[in-house]
């Protein structure tokens, strides 16, 4: 299984966690986040949990700082994104 930048970006686009695409942001809006996620995986095969943790870490750096409540609200979507990335990479 190889997790590619294209797969991650497509997943982030579809999920549009911050709702920026829906107000007209370009296709590359989450490109950097996709690149960072793939970079941090560095070729390893993550579990859904570890991938969700990477997504959360990257997201917090890009859009944070988040309060504990903000993190809690986003946690399900981080898990969902991780799940979809793994599914789309198989």
């Amino acid at each position, binding site marked *: 299984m190889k997790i590619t930048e294209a797969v991650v970006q497509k997943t982030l686009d579809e999920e549009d966690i911050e709702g920026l695409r829906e107000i007209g*942001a370009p296709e590359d809006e989450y490109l950097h986040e996709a690149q960072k996620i793939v970079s941090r995986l560095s070729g390893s095969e993550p579990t859904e949990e570890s991938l969700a943790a990477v997504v959360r870490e990257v997201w917090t750096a890009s859009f944070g*700082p988040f309060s504990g409540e*903000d993190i809690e609200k986003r946690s399900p979507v981080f898990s969902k994104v991780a799940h979809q990335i793994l599914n789309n990479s198989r």
Partner: protein
Amino acid sequence: MQSASSSAFPEPLLAAMPQLREKLRLGFERKNPALNPGHTVCNSTTALGVSWSVASGTRQSDLMGRFMSPDFSDDDEGPVSIPYYNPSNPQSMNLYSYVRNSPTTHADSDGHDVNVCDNNGQCHQMTNDQYAAAQKAGNGGLNVPTLDQVGMNGNGSGQFNSTAITDSSGKTVGTATYVSDGPTDFYANRNGLNVLANASATVGSVKGVAAFYGASAAGALAVYGAGLTAGAEATTLGDLSSGLTEHGAERLAERGITPQAARDAIEAAKKAGDVVTKMGRYGTPQSVYTANGIRVVVEEAGANAGKIITAFFK
């Protein structure tokens, strides 16, 4: 000489600014007043009518045109015995001479600059000493090039390229570019070092390979101004994107939208009434400003309140 900019500057670098600014001030006050108008020194006249000035613990006799105590300096290991010695120029061993006995044509300004810019084009200029000290300090995981790396990134004849400042993941978050202060500048003239030495180059405060920088009086004044500005600011290297989230800073930089252009768009949108405030997906209100062909999204609450999340051409 580029002018100093005011706002964003990496935190770790500026964290070291107070003491650096003080060092800069002390170093500067030691200079020849005639070549550095506007500086302040403590002047006095002895009973014999000999006037002298005191700054940085080194007395400079106005009458004799030389320092009254050795032009020593300290580094991390303590006092340097012959701090500015250049083996190709024996005159540099004279610790009492001011600009190698050529005060009418040179100024011992310590004035050699590095211009640090973020990805948004916001820049901050500092002296070589400030830069070198800050580079050695903790920089929050940033990889900041050394002064030598910055100074050697050029053609040796006065043209310099930008050297990247990267974060821990290798992403470029800013640049450092050497700024030559004039024709006797070491890095600008490293291809003609021997010629420079024979021409009795100005002594600078940076040791080792850069032991004899030069600087014009005009350059020195500009550097002094930059130093004061630098010390007065509270911005930092980690604050490269003040007013923006990291995502916002990256998106704006990549799309060629300056923070000022985004702020202008916000103001124009407010005047035109083209502002939409919506609830973000996770309960945080966001305002969407559209004007000047740019759409800007600003977080309105929480830790990022007031920060630009993204901007794009519309």
